[in-house]
Structure formats: C-alpha cells, structure tokens
C-alpha cells in the first residue's frame, strides 16, 4: 500500500496532543485507571478528544484545530478542568511531566487492544519503558512540499523545544541528571530519530517510503518515531520532541512558539535546509536533553557554539512581529519566562525535590500545579 496523498490544510493551523499521567491518590504511583476514566468521561460531551494510550496509566487528549493562542489555551483549560473533575470523582490524580519519577516500568499494564498488545510483543521491555508522556504539536501545511520544507527547516530549532518543555529529570526513583530523560526512552526505538533528507514529497513517498515498505519494516507513517514527522491524512507536520509540560499554559505557549517560528520560516529569509545541517543534530539534541536551557548548541550553518537559552531569547526577538500578527504575544511571554528567569519544568521539579526530599513530594507538587 503506497503512502496516502498529502491532504493539504490551512497553513499555520495548530492542534495539540497531550499525554497525561494517571496516579493513585495515596502513594502517587501510576494507577491503571484509563478505562475507568474513559468510561466516566464518555457519559458527557468532552471539550476536545480523549483516547487511550499504550498503558492503562496514561491518557491522551487532543484539541481541535486552532489558529490563535487565546482559543487554544481556553480549550486546553476546559479539557484540563473536565479531566480534573472526573478524576476527583474517581479518586485519581492527574499530572503532566515527561516521566513518572518513580514508577517501576514492569508494573505497567499494557492496554487491552490488539495494536498495543502487538507492540508490546514486538518491543518487549521497551514498550513498557515507553511509559513516557509527550506533547505533540501539529502544524497545518498548504502542500506536501511545504510540509517537508518546514520539517527540515525546523531541525536547528528542535533543541529549543526539548529544552523549553523538558519536565522529566527523574526516572525509576533517581535524578537522571537529564532535563528530559523521556527522550532517551524514545531513542531506543529502531525507527526513532530524524526523517531522511529530501524536500520533495514525490521523492519522499515514491522512493523512500516505497523502499522502506518493501523491506517489510514499516506499514504506515505510524511506524516511524521521528522527532518531526509528516502526517499526510491531516495535512500537517507533527513535532514530537516535547515532554508534556506541567501546565496547559506552557503547552499552549510551546505550540504558539512553534506556530510563530513556522510563520517566520515560511517567509524563506533563512538559508535553505540541507542534509549537512544534521551533522550537529544529535549533538544538539543531546545537549538539550542533558542540560536543558543551559545546554550549548552548534548552529549548523555558521558552526558557532551558542547557549540554547541565548538562542531562544534571540529567536523570540526575531519572532516578535509574527507573534503580533498571530495574536500570540501572551504565548511569547510564557516562553520568555521559561527561557529567562523561571526556567523549565525540570528545574521546577528539582526545586520541589529539594523542598520535600522525596520523589513522592515531587509528584504531589506536579499534580497540584496542573490544577492551578
């Protein structure tokens, strides 16, 4: 079966997906409660979409298509409020964060669905270690070639999103010293990483995808776990490197930062992306995962080293007119706060650990922060 045709959509439209953790209220370990929660949510209309994920302790929500920060944020808040109310009725806590700080992966139950069971059979412990929680942002593209252009033009900005969203410093009960330990789990999958370099959709779908398909390794785009992947049936590209932030405000901020960035890139004032840009890609990505905003990245064009924080603050200035045009200045403020003095959520979680001295205290604080 060939790759389906790219369904064009309106440029710069946004959709946000969040994977959230379900916790039991007494010791804040992950709780296998997705089916109970979905059953209760199914009784009344949900302000968005809600679906089960791989494990019973995870739930995924998605917004509808948006063009502006205000409506996007208000829908995310509605979703959050509806979830919190339902969870309260069932004595479940719900929280953001890229990993659960102390869950033991072998205790996670894989959701009872054929695809999940099949993945679990294929990937073994990787499937359970994949109990990590990400934010995915879709950006609408007017054409398939525009999608590939954006996908590759964004390569140099991927560390920004990793560092800004990072909220998974703890894993299996210890501080990993990474700001985003979650991405380490994602990298373990054979088809993770970056998309092959081509700016032509016909080459991508007729040559690359057809070859891959003939190897029997993949059946659809779903089998690729790339950092950014095209989604032909939506007519979007999907950024997948973000940890789920601890608040919906940060989630909306990240989405609109991406939107403004895409608007800037579509003006094509920057040099075209090329395959050599990826020489520094994995190094930059590692720096962002490990050190967050304090990491150092190499600009693939100029080959100069710059702190990720500085690069974000600089980019924010460049994006100012785009944010104005897109009505998303509030989102830029949110991003500036994170990049500037208050730091990302990994920093926030480490501060909570210093206060409470326990990883349970960290989860408690994360669950409380989502409600605010």
């Amino acid at each position, binding site marked *: 079966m060939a790759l389906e045709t790219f369904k064009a959509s309106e440029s710069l439209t946004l959709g946000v997906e969040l994977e959230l953790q379900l916790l039991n209220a007494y*010791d804040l370990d992950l709780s296998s409660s997705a*089916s109970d929660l979905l059953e209760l949510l199914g009784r009344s209309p949900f302000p968005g979409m809600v679906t089960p994920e791989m494990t019973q302790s995870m739930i995924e929500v998605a917004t509808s298509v948006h063009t502006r920060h205000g409506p996007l944020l208000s829908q995310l808040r509605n979703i959050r409020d509806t979830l919190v109310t339902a969870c*309260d009725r069932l*004595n479940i806590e719900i929280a953001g964060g890229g990993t659960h700080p102390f869950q033991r992966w072998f*205790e*996670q139950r894989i959701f*009872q669905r054929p695809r999940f069971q099949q993945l679990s059979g294929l990937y073994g412990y990787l499937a359970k270690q994949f109990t990590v929680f990400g934010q995915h942002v879709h950006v609408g593209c007017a054409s398939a070639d525009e999608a590939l252009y954006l996908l590759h033009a964004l390569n140099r900005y991927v560390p920004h999103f990793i560092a800004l969203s990072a909220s998974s410093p703890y894993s299996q009960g210890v501080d990993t010293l990474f700001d985003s330990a979650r991405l380490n789990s994602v990298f373990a999958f054979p088809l993770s990483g970056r998309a092959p370099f081509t700016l032509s959709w016909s080459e991508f779908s007729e040559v690359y995808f057809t070859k891959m398909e003939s190897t029997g390794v993949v059946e659809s785009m779903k089998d690729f776990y790339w950092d950014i992947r095209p989604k032909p049936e939506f007519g979007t590209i999907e950024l997948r490197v973000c940890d789920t932030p601890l608040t919906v405000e940060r989630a909306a901020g990240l989405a609109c930062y991406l939107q403004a960035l895409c608007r800037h890139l579509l003006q094509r004032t920057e040099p075209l992306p090329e395959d050599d840009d990826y020489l520094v890609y994995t190094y930059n990505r590692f720096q962002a995962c490990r050190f967050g905003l304090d990491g150092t990245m190499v600009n693939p064009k100029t080959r100069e080293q710059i702190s990720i924080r500085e690069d974000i603050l600089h980019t924010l200035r460049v994006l100012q007119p785009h944010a104005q045009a897109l009505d998303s200045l509030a989102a830029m403020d949110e991003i500036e706060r994170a990049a500037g003095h208050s730091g990302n959520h990994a920093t926030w979680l480490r501060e909570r650990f210093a206060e409470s*001295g326990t990883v349970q205290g960290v989860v408690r604080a994360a669950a409380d922060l989502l409600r605010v």
Partner: protein
Amino acid sequence: MPLPAELSYLLQTIAWPLVLLLAWVLADFLHAHWHIPRVSSYVAIGMFAGAVDLPGLTDDITGLPFVANVALALVLFELGYRINLRWFRNNPWVLVAGVAESVLTFAAVFGVISWLVPDMRLHVHLAVAALAMASSPAGVLRVVHETRSSGQVTERVMHLTAINCLLSVLVLQLVTGSRTLRVSGDWMQAVFASLHVLGTSLVVGMLLGFVVPKLLKGRLAAAPDGATVVFALSVLLLTTAAYGLKLSPLLAALTFGVVARERRVHLTNAQRNFGTAGDLLGVFLFVYVASVLEWRDVLPGLQLGVVLVLVRMSSKVLVNLTLAQVSGITPFKGAMTGLALTPMSAFVVLLVSQTGAVGFDLAEQTLAAITGMVLVLELLGPLVTQRALMAAREAQVTQEA
C-alpha cells in the same frame, strides 16, 4: 494413644514455627500453581491445626492474641493510610454506598438470624449483625497487594472496607454498652464506658497521627526506610497503650493511618505492607485467627453460616450495583466491588475477643453463632475478592521481567 511426654513437649515447643512454615510453603505452592490467594491457604492450615488441636498451639501460649492484634493494627494503619477523606467530598456517592451497604447488611443479617434462630438472645442477634457489616481489612489488603491491582474496584473496596469496619466497631460498642446497662442498670457507667472506648481510641490515633509525622520531618529524605520502622513501632506503641487503657487498638490504628495520610507523609511503594515484617506477621495473623475457631461450633453453625454468607453477599452486591452508575462506574464494576467486599475474618474475631476482654459472656455466644459464617468467608472470601478484581481487569496480568 497418649503421646510420650518428651515428644509432646517437643511438639509443644516447635508447634507454632512449624505450622507457620508449613502454611507459607503450602500457600506459595498453591499460589504458583493455581493462583489460590495465599491467605486462603494460611487459613486452611490454621483451621487444620486447630482441628487436630496440636499441643501448644492455642491457649497455652499467652501473648498470642496481643501479637495478632499488633499484626492487624498494622493492617488497619495501612488501610487508613490509603483512605482519602477528600474523595468523600468530591464524590459523596462513595460514602453513601459505604454507609448503605453497611446498614443494609446489618438489617438483612439481623432479620434473617432473628427469624431462623429466634431462641437466641437479642444482643447476640445484634452483635452478629454488627459484625457481619465488616469486611476483612487484612484479607482485602493482602489480595490487593498480591494481585497488584489498581482501579475503581480496588479503590472502592479499600474505602468501603474502612467505612464498614468503622461502623461495625461503633455498633458493636453500642450493643455492649446497652448490655452493660441491662446488667448494671447504671446509665453513667454504660455511657461512659462506650464513650471512653470510642472517643479515647480516636484521640490516641489522632495524636499519633499528628506527632509521628512531626518526628519524621526532614528525616524522610535521609532514610526513607526509617519512616516505615517508625510507623511500625508507633503502631506497636499504640496497640500496647490500647491494651493497657482497654481501648480499641483497631479503631486507634485506623485513625492513626487516616490522620498520617492527611498530614501528607509519603511512604514509598517499596514499603507497602510493611515489607518482610508485614509478611511474617500476616502469615501468623491468618493462621492464628483460623486456629482459634472452635470446631464444635462449626458443624451446627454451618447451615446458618451459609445462609448468612449469602444474605451478606447479596446486600453488599445489591447496594454497590444500584449505586454504580450514579457514583461514576459501570454496573459491572459495581457488582465486582460488592463481591470483592466478601472476606470476613481476623478483624471480626479479634473484635469479639476484645468485647470478651471487657467482661461479657456475650463474646462467647456471638463467636459461636458466627463461627460457621467466618469459616466459610475466611477460606473463600479472599478467593472471591481475587476473582472479582481479575474479572474487573484490575489485577496485573503481566509478570515481572
């Protein structure tokens, strides 16, 4: 043929450790091969040991009831620790379900036993009905741990068990209080005795719940396992104090757990069940409680027991099924919640023996009347809970890698 004196002495000395070891090995074997809940096997061995009346097993060793009370107090502390009072505010239907299933069980059991055994004294009828409300916290918790289950049935079984145990203690106290009144005619004594037991137990539990977290403040990060030791020792202290003051150690331990949780002391999940010490005391608790059941009461009480079991199960299932939808779960999960509440054992037996310690013949008659029911429910209750959790798909299906 009487045993030679030396052999009898030897048996007497090693009877307990031997029986406990046997119980553990058998339970492990049956669990591995047929997924029989371990506690059912412990109970079976205890009953067997009680039936053959091994020398040195029951009355000869003083202090065993105390150890059993400590073991159960630890369980009740843990149950209390799992109770989220805020849930009752967020979803009052859970509280309603807990009270309703207790009240209906009380009424139904009282009605049936009054009708079937009219020649029994009213106070015994009332006491049996009060005891029938309570699910076994130890049985339920052990099965939940063993299956590592989580979900709505699990959550609700915990909370409803805490409610029905609490109500059972209260009503039983009222029954013994009114009995004091009948015997002595002294209002003051009756009222004071009841208030003392209930009120002081609550206060002792609350006091510890406030003080212990303060003691631990700042120490948790340095020694997370230390917290478990401190809590276990506090429960020991509380049980001892309750014995001295003739209070209810069970009520005090439950209160201690609830308050400690509200103070947000975080015990890590590695310490669930108080680890190895908790396992050890658990084996003892189930074997001991089963071994004190009098076999001469079993056969005449068995028929009544089976009837009461059915009445009790039906009322618990009926209420939870009826309130399932409105409380936010499917009718199926509601029914499973009702079934999972089936176990009844240690809590009830120890509760009755404490009533006996206060000095009434009521205890002996009541224990005789419920022996049949307890026998059935001790043995089969955990199995019902386990199957209910499995049917609700809340038990872990994956094996540890």
